[in-house]
């Protein structure tokens, strides 16, 4: 099974990185180290990504998410810790073997596309195969197929600078897909695109994922994007992962004030689903009376109209149609209201802190402004 596992990853830039890791393990603060001239980019990151999952790492710039991503394919060597993929410890491989793994099993999509301007679209898409040493004819065939998957059939002979941003990133995506790698690393891949195009690309990625079932690690600073794409989401701050969970977990039970402030601008009504907020049905509840019956993954925004019509709770069923819970009008309002005031007194914050173990030495303060994009 090609499970991706990160174990206690540290990355420290500057002098004597090993010493710095020791200090961090013994509870030293990031700021202390910075005074000494070393920068701890990633601190004690551990997670597991199951095959076929989209794992989103979310955080602001400087939170260490790009560094973390680059340790996963060995572009950066971890100062401490291990990366395991497909049964191999990547951190223990020789540069040569590591290159072989990168060329065959892991591919990457970049924020600014990183297309080679001196190569045509086809040549760009075929690049990874060229590195693998695939004969020209075969690699061009596979590149054409990858371009078709990415929605660029017919553009093979064009040049990168003749394409729009979204199309360029499709080339980047095709380049990554062409190698048939199991693991796809996407570094803020859609951040440089216009909002509408970004949405298209997200849809396309989800569409592709349905058939391709790749293991994807997706980096973003855009919470909505994270929520949309992520099967699981890791929130990073100052080099540490502060919370890992599903979109609902993070929205409903933010691990701390930081996460809470991060998610405050999110349109919860679109992200939260009926399944996440439903309660057990009350006694004598009859689904036949309900104003509507929805499935667990229905966004809560679709519950407003039925709830407003009738006092009876909306019924929630699983895929087979069996009743699993209900959403009452009160519950609906409460859920939307709760995290809107992420100040210390609110009960919700406390609940959140209980729900997820607070990361070591974290002095959370409200974040003044969070850029969540669209």
């Amino acid at each position, binding site marked *: 099974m090609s499970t991706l596992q990160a174990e206690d990853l540290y990355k420290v830039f500057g002098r004597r990185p090993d010493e710095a890791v020791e200090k961090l393990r013994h509870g030293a603060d990031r700021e202390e180290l910075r005074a000494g001239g070393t920068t701890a980019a990633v601190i004690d990151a551990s997670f597991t990504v199951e095959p076929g999952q989209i794992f989103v790492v979310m955080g602001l710039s400087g939170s260490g998410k790009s560094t973390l991503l680059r340790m996963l394919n060995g572009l950066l060597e971890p100062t401490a810790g291990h990366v395991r993929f497909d049964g191999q410890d990547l951190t223990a491989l020789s540069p040569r073997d*590591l290159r072989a793994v990168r060329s065959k099993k892991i591919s990457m999509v970049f924020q600014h596309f*990183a297309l080679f301007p001196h190569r045509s679209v086809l040549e760009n898409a075929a690049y990874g195969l060229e590195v693998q040493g695939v004969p020209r004819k075969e690699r061009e065939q596979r590149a054409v197929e990858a371009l078709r998957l990415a929605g660029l059939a017919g553009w093979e002979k064009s040049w990168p600078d003749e394409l729009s941003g979204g199309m360029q990133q499709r080339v980047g995506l095709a380049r990554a897909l062409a190698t048939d790698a199991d693991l796809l690393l996407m570094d803020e891949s859609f951040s440089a695109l216009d909002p509408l195009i970004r949405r298209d690309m997200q849809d396309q990625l989800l569409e592709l994922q349905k058939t391709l079932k790749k293991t994807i690690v997706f980096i973003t600073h855009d919470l909505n994007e994270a929520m949309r794409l992520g099967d699981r989401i890791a929130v990073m701050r100052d080099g540490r992962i502060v919370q890992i969970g599903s979109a609902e977990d993070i929205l409903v039970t933010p691990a701390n004030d930081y996460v809470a402030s991060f998610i405050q601008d999110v349109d919860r009504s679109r992200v939260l689903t009926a399944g996440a907020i439903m309660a057990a049905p009350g006694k004598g509840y009859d689904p036949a009376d309900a104003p509507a019956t929805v499935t667990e993954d229905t966004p809560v925004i679709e519950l407003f109209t039925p709830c407003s019509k009738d006092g009876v709770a909306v019924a929630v069923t699983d895929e087979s149609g069996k009743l699993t819970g209900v959403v009452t009008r009160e519950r609906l309002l409460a859920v939307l209201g709760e995290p809107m005031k992420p100040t210390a007194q609110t009960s919700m914050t406390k609940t959140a802190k209980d729900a997820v173990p607070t990361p070591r030495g974290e002095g959370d303060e409200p974040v003044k402004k969070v850029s969540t994009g669209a």
Partner: protein
Amino acid sequence: MPRIPFGDWVNDVVEWLLSNAAWLFDFFKNVFNGAYDGINWVLQAPQPLILAGIFAVVAFWLRGTVAGVLTFVGFAFIDSLELWDHAMMTLSLVLVATIIALVISVPVGIWAARSNRVSAVVRPVLDFMQTLPAMIYLIPAILFFGSGAPAGIVATLIFALAPGVRMTELGIRQVDKELVEAADAFGDTPRNTLFRVQLPLALPSIMAGVNQVIMLGLSMAAIAGMVGSEGLGADVNEAIGQLNVGLGSESGVAIVILAIYLDRMTSALGTQASPMGRRALAKVRAAHGLTVWNYRPRPEVAVVGVVILALVAGGMGIFGGSKSENPVADASDVGQGKKISIGYIPWDEGVASTFLWKEILEQRGFDVQAKQLDAGPLYTSLASGQIDFETDSWLPTTHAQYWKKYGKQLDDLGAWYGQTSLELSVPAYMKGIDSLEDLKGKSATFDGKITGIESSAGMMGLLKDKVLKEYGLDKEYRVVDSSTPAMLAQLKRAYAKKQPIVTTLWSPHWAYSDYKLKKLKDPKGAWGKGDGVHTLSRKGFAADNPEVGKWLKNFKMTEKQLTSLEAEINKAGKGKQQDAVKTWLKSNPGVVDKLAPVKKSSTAGGKGEAARPVNVAWFPWDEDVAVTYLWKRVLGDRGYKLNLKQMDVGPVYTGLGSGDLDVNFDAWLPYAQKNYWDKHKDNLTDLGSWYSPTSLEVAVPSYVKGVKSLQDLKGKGSTFDGKIIGIEPGTGEMNLLKKNVLPGYGLDKEYKVVDGSTPAMLAELKRAYAKKQPVAVVLWSPHWAYNEYKLNKLTDSKKLFGEGNTIRTIANKSFPSKYPQLTKWFKNFKMSESELGSLEAEIKKRGQGHEEEAVDAWLKTHKGVADRMAPQ
């Protein structure tokens, strides 16, 4: 502060390298020389205009129609300036230097781009190479690589390397980091990343570096002229050395044309070479639409064009350039290198028969010297055995006196041409004058003059002593001694203007076929009976050389053969007699075998010291130009090949010391070049002085009144602005002036000697002279400035400038053993002031690039100089 002996350390390192790493430098020298010769050979082979066509096609392909046309015009212009050969030499030098520079600089640049440490080390080295004054490494370059192309290439290389490295490093470092990371993320190796991503993207920058390398190389090529690199640089150097701005700028413009061409082509190549550049270009063309002006052929078309032209050029090179010297066929090599010298008087039949025999004997494997002499010296030389034979004795009458005197020491090999006659002739338009008697009383018509030939000629004696007296003309007419060419020139001039003239002439002579002349009848038979033209040899020559003796005894020529050969020689002009003979022999096949029949057996022979070319270094100073080209001509006639290399003083001594150069004719010793001589004297040999005395002096224009001696300068500091315009600092004369002369006359407080250069001094003199401003300059004699301007040499009553230099011939130490014959000639070589002066004037008159013609012309009027210089 202690004195740090940095200079000594450098000297030690240089010494050590010279003694321990010579093999390495020799290796590089050979590589450089080989590459240079190869490229130069290719560029020199085709006809200039065809190569210009090839260049134009390349421009057409890379940049379009306008560039192609301009290229052709530019290169044709270079050709019309008669600078083509030199331009191609410069181009070869730059190309070799560029190729080597790229081979070094691109990898170094790549390395520096990938390692900050290497970059940190390389950068100061590049700064050093680019800013160190060129002269500092030019001279050592000679020590290590010898003068000429290799030293020029090294100097160019050092200067031009830096931009190649810098632009390569910059180009690679500027490649978007994300792209390199992408390559890395897909598992590409560093090496493939370099070739797949970094180099293609850095290409425009690297090509800009190439462009810079070429530009700097070209600018350096001019300076490389100072160390004897052939080409335009040497021309510029020479022209500026003689203050000839016009000629200097011709060479300068040729350099500029080369520079612009190379610049435009490399930058166009830069865009062509990278796919992005090609696309940008295609876009621009698409936007403007296709017209004649920006039409560019596709590469295939251009290649076809170049190939066709190259084939044409190659074909012409093969068929047109095959006039190689006839190698001696084995069977006919009778002489096996044996030396034979033929003397001749520059009379047409003598010249014709002498060069005919020279050619024949050379074809038969003899090493033949043809020496031009006056009649008197000719017989003396023949009698003393210095000359083997001559073909132009008019016996029994004309040369009777000589035969009487020397006949016992000579052998008569018989007459080869029948009846001749001597006479006075007048143009046919002189009515009523048909015989010698008719001249009587007509002296007013002829201005009382009979235009004669060389006074030593037998017929002149006959004319003066006998003929004129017999007809009673000796009171009335004066016989003007001159020379045969002068007589013929007079005749030609008068004939053209239809003026009366009476000349001494003889038959056979081509003048009778060119002009309508009347031979004046000699009813009294005063001229005597007609002579036969005899071949005379030294006693015993026929016994020593039985074959040749037999050939000469059987030698016969008809009037038709002789006059046609004379006409051919006359047409070809001086210095090309032998070529004319060759041409004539071609149209008269079989003559050689008839005159010199051979049996079918023999072997080839060696050629001795003349087989080795002699490297002669010369300064662009008038006396050296004159003497060097004179020797080149004289020795060329004697089968030597002289490679002339124009250089500055320091490089010449260095080159002579290292044995890279063989000889220089312009050493001013013991004073002016003392410092150089002292430094290298262990490796040099002095072949004696050929001109003396010279003098060093301060000179002022004669319009500056009251300044006749150095003492007169005292108190006139304000007149001269307190300045004496000097030449290159560090030269012997400048040192003498500063250390001895000025203090000696108490002028050192009042005057400052301005350091500069000889051209700068001459320019200043010219400027001041034109404005009649007072100026005092450092000068020396002989110098053309004394002919050009009216200058007073300030007398040096205390003799502080020393007793005067002599101009000496100096050579590498091993020269006497390598060239014993030349050493003898050089040691005996002398030139008088009037000879040198007239030769310099002739050269100056004809201008740069025509030195050889000037020497030929001068030798015509200075007969015997060549034989005096190189007798056998």
